[in-house]
C-alpha cells in the first residue's frame, strides 16, 4: 500500500509542478466550457430571412410580424422581386425566403385558404429541418389566430382543446442541454489524454524501465497511475458543475451524490481506455494522435451534439458500445430530469461492466510489456 501511495504522490507532484499541465487541467476546461456552450448550439435564433411580399396587406404584414416576433427569424431584406431573393440565397446572405403572393388577403377572406412559399437554404448547417418546422409552426399559429379573430363558430359545437407542455426545459434553454454534455466531454478528454500521455512519456524518457525493476507489482503500478487522475477527474467535474451552475444556471434536479458516484464508475472506464492506448503507442505524439482519434469518434457518436434518436438505426445500435453515450445519458438524466438510481440503472450497469472489461484488458496488455 505504501508503494502505491509513494508513486501516486510522485504523480501528483508531476502534475502540480508542471505549470503547463496544471493550466491544461484546470483553466482550459473552464474556458472550453464557456466557449463551447455558446458555440456548439443548434439553437435557432435570428435566421436571416428575406421577404418577398407581393400582397402588402394587413394579413401579409401580420404574418411577417409573427415571424419577427418569434425571435427565431430576422428579416434582413425585403423587396417585391424574386430575383433579388434568389440572389441573396445564392450569396448565402439569407437562409430562408418567404414569398407571399398577390391576393393573399383577399383569398383568405373569400375562400378561407391561401398559399405562401417558403424556400430554405439547406446548405447552411443541418439546422434547415428545424428552421422549417419552426416556420410551419408560426404559419399554423397565425392561421388559427386569424380564424379566432374572424369570430368563433356559431352554436355550441364541441371543441377539442390541445394544450402543450415542455417538460424538463420549459424555457427551451439550449445551454441547459449542452452544458452537462460538454462537462462529460471535458472530463473524458482530460482523463484519457493525461493517462495515455503520462505513461507514454515514462516510456519515452526510459523511466518506465526503472519502475519495472522496482518490487512494485503491476496492480499497484496501475492503481498508483490511475488514482491521481481519477481524483483529478472528479475535481474537474465539480469545478465544471460549479461554473455551469453559476454562469449558465444549469438545473440540478437530481441527487449530486448519485451523479458523482456514476462519475466515479465512468472515470475508471475513461482512464482504463487511456491506459490501454498507452500500451499501444511508443511516443507522446502517437498517444495524443490515437487518443484524439478515438475520442473524436466516441464524442461525435455519443449523442452529445446531436440526439441519438436522429442517428441512422445501425449507428444507434453501435453506439451502445460507446461509454461516453451512457454517461451523457446519466448526466443529462440526473441533472435535467432529476432521474434517480432506478432510472439510470441500465446505463450505470453497462458502464460498470465496461470498466471491468477495459481495466482487465489494459492490465493484460500491460503484463506483456513488462514480461
Amino acid at each position, binding site marked *: 500500500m505504501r508503494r502505491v501511495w509513494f508513486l501516486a504522490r510522485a504523480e501528483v507532484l508531476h502534475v502540480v509542478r508542471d505549470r*503547463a499541465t496544471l493550466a*491544461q487541467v484546470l483553466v482550459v476546461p473552464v474556458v472550453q466550457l464557456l*466557449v*463551447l456552450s*455558446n*458555440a456548439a*448550439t*443548434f439553437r*435557432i435564433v*435570428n435566421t436571416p430571412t428575406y421577404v418577398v411580399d407581393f400582397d402588402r396587406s394587413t394579413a401579409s404584414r401580420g404574418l411577417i410580424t409573427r415571424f419577427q416576433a418569434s425571435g427565431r427569424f430576422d428579416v434582413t431584406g425585403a423587396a417585391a422581386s424574386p430575383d433579388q431573393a434568389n440572389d441573396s440565397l*445564392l*450569396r448565402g446572405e439569407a*437562409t430562408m425566403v418567404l414569398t407571399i403572393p398577390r391576393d393573399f388577403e383577399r383569398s383568405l377572406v373569400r375562400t*378561407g*385558404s391561401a*398559399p405562401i*412559399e*417558403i*424556400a*430554405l437554404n*439547406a*446548405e*447552411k*448547417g*443541418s*439546422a434547415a*429541418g*428545424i428552421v422549417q418546422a*419552426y416556420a410551419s409552426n408560426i404559419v399554423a399559429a397565425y*392561421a388559427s389566430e386569424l*380564424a*379566432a379573430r374572424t*369570430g368563433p363558430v356559431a352554436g355550441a*359545437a*364541441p*371543441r*377539442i382543446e*390541445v*394544450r402543450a*407542455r*415542455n417538460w424538463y*426545459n420549459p424555457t*427551451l434553454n439550449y445551454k441547459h*442541454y449542452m452544458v452537462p454534455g460538454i462537462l462529460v466531454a471535458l472530463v473524458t478528454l482530460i482523463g484519457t489524454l493525461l493517462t495515455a500521455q503520462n505513461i507514454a512519456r515514462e516510456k519515452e524518457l526510459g523511466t518506465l524501465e526503472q519502475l519495472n525493476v522496482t518490487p512494485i507489482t503491476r496492480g499497484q503500478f496501475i492503481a498508483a497511475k490511475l488514482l491521481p487522475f481519477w481524483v483529478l477527474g472528479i475535481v474537474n467535474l465539480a469545478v465544471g458543475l460549479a461554473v455551469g451552475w453559476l454562469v449558465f444556471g444549469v438545473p440540478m434536479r437530481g441527487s449530486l451524490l448519485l451523479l458523482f458516484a456514476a462519475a466515479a464508475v465512468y472515470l475508471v472506464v475513461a482512464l482504463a481506455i487511456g491506459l490501454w492506448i498507452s500500451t*499501444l*503507442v511508443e511516443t*507522446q*505524439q*502517437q498517444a*495524443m494522435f*490515437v487518443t484524439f482519434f478515438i475520442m473524436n*469518434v466516441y464524442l*461525435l*457518436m455519443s449523442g452529445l451534439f446531436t*440526439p441519438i*434518436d*436522429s442517428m441512422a438505426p445501425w449507428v444507434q445500435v453501435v453506439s451502445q458500445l460507446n461509454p461516453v453515450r451512457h454517461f451523457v445519458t446519466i448526466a443529462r438524466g440526473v441533472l435535467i*430530469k432529476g*432521474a434517480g438510481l*432506478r432510472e439510470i440503472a441500465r446505463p450505470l450497469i453497462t458502464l460498470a461492466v465496461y470498466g471491468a472489461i477495459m481495466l482487465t484488458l489494459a492490465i493484460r496488455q500491460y503484463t506483456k510489456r513488462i514480461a
Partner: protein
Amino acid sequence: MKALGGLLRKEVYHILRDRRTLVVIIAMPVLQVVIFGYAIRTDVDRVRLAIVDPTPDPVTLAIRSRFDAAGVFRTVAVLPRPESLDSLFERGDAQGAVAFDPAFAEKLGRGLPVRILIIGDATEPNTGGIVQAYAAAVVQAYANELGTHTAGIRIVPTIRTRFNPTRESSNLFVPGLMAFVLTIISSLMTAISLTREKETGTMEALLASPLRPWQIIVGKVTPYLVVGFASVVGVIVEARLVFHVPLRGSVTLLLFEGLLFILVSLSLGILISARTSSQRVAMMGALIGTLLPTMLLSGFIFPLESMPVVLRAISYIVPARWFVLVARGVMLKGIGLAYLWSATLILLAMASALLVASTKSFHERLET
C-alpha cells in the same frame, strides 16, 4: 536541388515509418465521412410516444390510431394514469406523451369541452418543440374532420428546400470535412514535424547544411501538402461513391481554393512551430489555435447565426469559415467566382500575409 531531394526523401521516410500516425491520418477522414453521414443528424423521426388514456373509448382509440398511422410516432406505452410518465421520460423510454381527459367520448358527445395534453421532452429543445408540433398537427387534423374546429382558415405553405432538397447531412458536412482534414494534416502535422527537429536537435544539423532556409521549409512541407491533397481527393471520391454528394460547380475552382486553404494552414503550422519549442506545446497550440476554430467557428457543424456576437466576430478571422463557404457554394450551389470572389480574395490575402509572416519568423530564428 539534390540536397532538397534528399530532405524530401527523408521526410517521406519519416511519414511512412510511423505506421500508427499514418493509419490515423488515413483512417480519420474515411471514418469521419461515415460518422458525419450517418450519425450527425437532427431529423426527428420514429418518436417514442406514451399515451395516457384513462377510459379508452371509440374517439380516443381513433386518435391513437391516427398517431400510429402518422408514421412519425411509435407508441411505446399506454397508461391508465399519468403518474408513471415521469419515470418513462427519465429513463428516456418516451420522448413525448399524449394525455386524454377521462370520459373523452362521452363529454365530446354532450358538447362539453375536452382537453388533450401534449407533453414533449424538451431536454433537447428542438426535438421537444418538433415532437409537440407533430402531435398537435395529428390531433388538429382529427378535430378538423370531426368538424369541431373553429372557422377554417388555412395558410398553405409550399416548402422548397434549395441546394440540398433531401437535407442529406453528408452533403452539408463534406465541404467542412475537407477543411478539417486539411487543417489536421497541414497545420498539426507540419507544426509537430518542425518542432520535433527542434526538440531532437536535428534542426541545427539541417541549418548547418548547405540547404537554404526556403529549401528547408519546402522540403519539410511538400510531403504534407501531397498527403493533404490526396486525402481531400479521397474524401471527395468517397463522398461521391458512398453518399452521392453532388459536385455541381467547377472542380478546378474547388481544387484551386483547396490549395489556397492548404497554404494558409501550412503557414499557420510553420508559425506555431516557430513560437514553440516542444512537441506537446506545438500540439496544444495547433489544437487550440487551428483545429477547434475549424470545428466550431466555421459554420461546419453549428450555424454561425446562433452564436453570440463575440464568437461571430472571431469567426471572420477563421480561414476555414471562408473555405467552407466557398466549398459549399461550388459543390452544392454550383456557383462560381461571380459570387465567391470576396471569400476567395480574403483567403488569398490570408495566405499571402501568413506566408510572409511564417517565412520571416523562420528567418529570425535562423539568425538567433
